[in-house]
């Protein structure tokens, strides 16, 4: 298979040059590779998308997909996994989607540790609704809902994910194709909840391209099994732009842990293949 087999014929409605295009391309590359390596089956891929520019991937990926409600990418992904543990489930969310509307699901899914991959397209604004501030928007950001400049400090999704118990925590950069690809691939291969924060400029409402290009560096040789080290990496950049700060990308943390599915090993196979003829008299007997 090739990446193009995972493309659809739908007209792209992202802005010309939007980094979402590159992310989409790399997701398709990774899927093709994993299928070719026999690690996953094309028919068994399922994407759960939020609502936002990021989520338009739903229309541009030729795989099983659920375009849910804004903020609910993760519960949907978890539900898919519950019903069919054989599926390779990938969540695609935005920073608004995942860190604002859906922040509660994010924290709890880091803990649930179902074997799903969550890609957050963090462009530090609500882009599709024309550029308002999100929890990762930097202090001073002037969006339409903060015309006088955002006054709060941004949250740090990396440290929140770590503190919430995620077993795979990585950051990548939408303009570094090789890194993007490698990171997404590792995330899908990880058994458990894989969180990938994808830093991406929004050309229209939050163009941090120059800053990111200048300051992003690849964390290498870090001990990905060490929580404290991971937390240090996470805290290196505070999502602000006041001065140059180094921004590490790469795999920060990865550990092995029982997955959510391990809880319900009794289910075993896709629900829809289970024949559930129930013995009614046995079932009702309890009440006799």
């Amino acid at each position: 298979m090739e990446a193009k087999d995972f493309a659809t014929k739908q007209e792209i409605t992202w802005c010309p040059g939007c980094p979402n295009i590159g992310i989409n391309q790399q997701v398709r590359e990774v899927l093709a590779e994993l299928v070719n390596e026999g690690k996953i089956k094309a028919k068994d891929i399922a994407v759960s998308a939020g609502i936002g520019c990021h989520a338009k991937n739903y229309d541009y990926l030729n795989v099983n997909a659920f375009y849910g409600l804004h903020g609910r990418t993760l519960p949907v992904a978890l539900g898919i996994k519950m019903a069919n543990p054989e599926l390779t489930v990938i969540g695609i969310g935005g920073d608004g989607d995942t860190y604002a509307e859906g922040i509660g699901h994010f924290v709890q899914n880091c803990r649930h540790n179902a074997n799903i991959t969550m890609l957050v397209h963090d462009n530090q604004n609500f882009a599709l609704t024309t550029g308002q501030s999100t929890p990762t928007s930097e202090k001073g950001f002037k969006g339409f809902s903060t015309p006088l400049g955002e006054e709060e400090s941004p949250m740090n999704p990396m440290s929140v994910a770590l503190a919430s118990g995620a077993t795979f925590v990585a950051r990548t950069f939408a303009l570094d194709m090789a890194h993007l690809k490698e990171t997404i691939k590792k995330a899908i291969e990880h058994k458990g909840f894989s969180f990938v924060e994808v830093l991406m400029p929004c050309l229209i409402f939050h163009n941090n391209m120059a800053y990111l290009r200048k300051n992003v560096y690849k964390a290498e040789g870090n001990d990905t099994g060490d929580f404290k080290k991971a937390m240090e990496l996470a805290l290196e950049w505070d999502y602000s732009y006041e001065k140059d700060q180094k921004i590490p990308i790469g795999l920060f943390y990865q550990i092995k842990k029982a997955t959510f599915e391990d809880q319900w090993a009794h289910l075993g196979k896709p629900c829809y293949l289970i024949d559930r003829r129930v013995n009614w008299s046995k079932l009702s007997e309890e009440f006799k």
Partner: protein
Amino acid sequence: MKKTILIGGVAGQGSAVTSRLIGKIFCRLGCFVFNYRDYPSLIRGGHNFNILEVSDRPVYSQSEKYDIIIALDQKTIDLHQMNLKDDGFVLASSRLRAERMKAIDTKPILEELEGPQYLENDILIGWMFKYFGVDKEFLFEQIREAFGQNSEKIEKAIEKGYLLAEEKEKLEKKEGNYFISGNDGISIGAINAGLDVYLAYPMTPATAVLHYLAKKEKEYNIEVSQLENEIAVVNAALGASFAGARAMVGTSGGGFALMTEAISLSGISELPLVVYLSQRMGPATGVPTYNSQGDLKFAVNAGHGEFPKIVVAPGDSQEAISRTEEAFYLTAKYRTPVILIGDKHLGESDYTFKELKSSSVSKDRFLSKNLPENYKTYEITDSGVSPAAAPGQGPVVRATSYEHDEYGYTIEDAETTVAMNKKRMKKAEQIEREVSRLKPTAVYGDGKNLIIGWGSTKGAIMDALPELDGFRFLQISYITPFPRDIVKKEMEKSDQVILIENSVTGLLGDIITEQTGLSVSKKVLKYDGRPFTADYIIRELKK
């Protein structure tokens, strides 16, 4: 024979457990029992009580006057003895005080048994069953079955009580009956319908379904999970549904409100979903362990935008079973949300039936086989229903909250928007036809005046009916689609039409007018959190 027994004590003393045990024993003797449960929102202390209505004929509600009050504390006596029948009495330990009382000196017995305080309940149980002339061995069998390993002391306590009483009546053992709550009915109906995934966040009075199903998780190989909140619950249920599972969620009004966005999603994405809404007294947190039918119009109109929806209201535990099975059937076949609307009174009361019947509706998953490569999730067909598939079967399967074309790709143009709305609304016509075959209404009795009710009021109305000359009862079980023609016909051929509802404003009355243009002539409403009794209805209708 007809006896009303109230059992009360502080929370933690076990009036709920004790009443269920007594009820079950009566059922096994062939009696009909209705068990009403009343408790405030606290864990220890306060005042809990149950009312057991025991009869040799079918009975569906509790009475207002008691033959026996089994008092576990003084408050029970103080609050309820004024409602003793003339020949009624309080049965209690001699540490308590009542006017007409069978006082049992439980202290020496408890000391002898070195048992915990709750054995007092068993002493009283023993006393009472002797009073009713129930065979001791039969009693012990029941106890052993109920408590297994732990039954020894309980048996002894029962025996002690038994020995202190005199036989007053002689209950003949007949063939045993089934004793089941509305929530348990919902639960086994769901299992029998082939439930794959049950998700919930605890909320009284729906929680018992979560508890029951969690216990059965391994035995029936179902996935039962409590997630972080109701929004996670309902969206995960839709994720599961997308992936081919039969999914259900359960909650009460507040949690239901949080789910309404996703109910709309179920509508447009055409993903099957059963939502069990067990009502309690609102608004907001309200009176959380008390009853109301005040969410009806909210449920019927739940979710933004327009899409077909099914709202079905069982009236007792047997109906809970079969309507739940129907809910799964309809949502699988027509791929639109079904709201199973009950309430505290239905869910937490125990009902008796000679047999428990499962519904004959198909248990099929309605998934297509031999899917074309070019599969269209939202194919426009004559019926509006598209052939369904699950991811993993082969072709790409899509589900979306956006308006879409047949493949499920996002669209924004006028024509496709219209076409897809038409497609979905066509299903409403199919559903209407189908539901008309599922006995959406029932008429009991044959007076020229018509009582209309829905859901849990059925019990008290049924028990009142024999006393109400000239009244018949129309039970409406499907609220959406509304059985317009039947209701209209019944109303038109009646003198008076009386709505009975546990609500402040009489919500079904609004729906009836909306759907038929006709108005009820009178509303008998109750909104104190307490369910109707037959006596109450009789009083109101004889006014």
